[in-house]
């Protein structure tokens, strides 16, 4: 395969979650999401109850992909920040380390300036965590340590059961 699959363990997940919680508070945001570029939700913070997070993740990734396509047409590498202003809520979307997408939804209790500032700091921390995740995955792959994974044992029967 062209890219490494993204494998996330408890330890890194906890650290990512902590960063998101901190950012949620410091930016005075309503909700935050972390989405991979392929549209899969990685983590979130804030009240996500009334939000279809799966759909949001996929559409955000589509949005970033489309603007990325536009950027390349214009000879830009990528637009790293997108901002959409609504009547009540605003949405700030940024790329973290070319790999994951950070979505911040906020209203008049915060401001674009504050969100920008806090996102910048959080991005650096998150970039470090994701760097560690990829080097860990590469190392484990090289050492063949992933054998205990649940997928080593998948049987035809397991798969058939999914489609009952």
């Amino acid at each position, binding site marked *: *395969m*062209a*890219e*490494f*699959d*993204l*494998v*996330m*363990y*408890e330890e*890194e*997940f*906890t650290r990512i979650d902590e960063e998101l919680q901190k950012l949620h508070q410091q930016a005075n945001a309503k909700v935050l999401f972390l989405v*991979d*570029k*392929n*549209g*899969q939700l*990685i983590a979130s913070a804030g009240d996500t109850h009334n939000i*279809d997070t*799966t*759909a949001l993740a*996929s*559409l955000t990734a*589509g949005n970033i*992909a*489309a603007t*990325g*396509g536009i950027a390349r047409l214009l000879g830009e590498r990528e637009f790293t920040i997108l901002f959409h202003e609504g009547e009540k809520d605003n949405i700030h979307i940024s790329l973290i380390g070319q790999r994951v997408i950070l979505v911040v939804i906020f209203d008049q209790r915060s401001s674009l300036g504050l969100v920008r500032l806090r996102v910048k700091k959080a991005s650096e921390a998150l970039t470090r965590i994701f760097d560690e995740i990829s080097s860990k995955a590469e190392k484990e792959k090289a050492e063949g340590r*992933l*054998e205990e*994974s*649940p*997928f*080593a*044992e*998948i049987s*035809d029967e*397991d*798969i058939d*059961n*999914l*489609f*009952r």
Partner: protein
Amino acid sequence: MSFINYSSREINCKIVYYGPGLCGKTTNLQYIYRKTNPDQKGKLISLATETERTLFFDFLPLALGDIRGFRVRFHLYTVPGQVFYAASRKLILKGVDGVVFVADSQIERMEANIESLEDLKINLAEQGYELEKLPFTVQHNKRDLPNVAPLEEMNSILNPNGIPFFEAVAMTGRGVFETLKNVAKQVLLELKKHY
């Protein structure tokens, strides 16, 4: 590129339905959506034109069940088949784990099928993928119509390597789940190889 989350014990896989305009990709997803239990599916998102042609993509998340304590989620996407949406098709293929090629069985669409399959190969190659190495299933759709090409002919042109293929009538659901199941199975077996 599947996403394995040991923390939430989930695995996400991306499956893309590819094929020429009007071959029935969206219809496949609509049928799957209709026939899946509410607790196993999310919303079907369609970014479409006013005439119901896919503009960017359709998206349907499915969570069919667990394997060895892991929740298995499939994210199904369709591409826009119309030739001039080439740039969008490329974007949707990013990170794909498995591909379904939906062919339109009508004789007059054979040229369009060939073109679309070529386009698929080129777009995959640009991302460093090879169709031959990817979980891949062919669906010969619209078998209900009178002017269809014989199966042997369709396979010899679109499926020279003899990979799994299914006859389908996406409108009534014939072959739809068989196709999905086949590609899903290949995707999961691929994971088994890698982990």
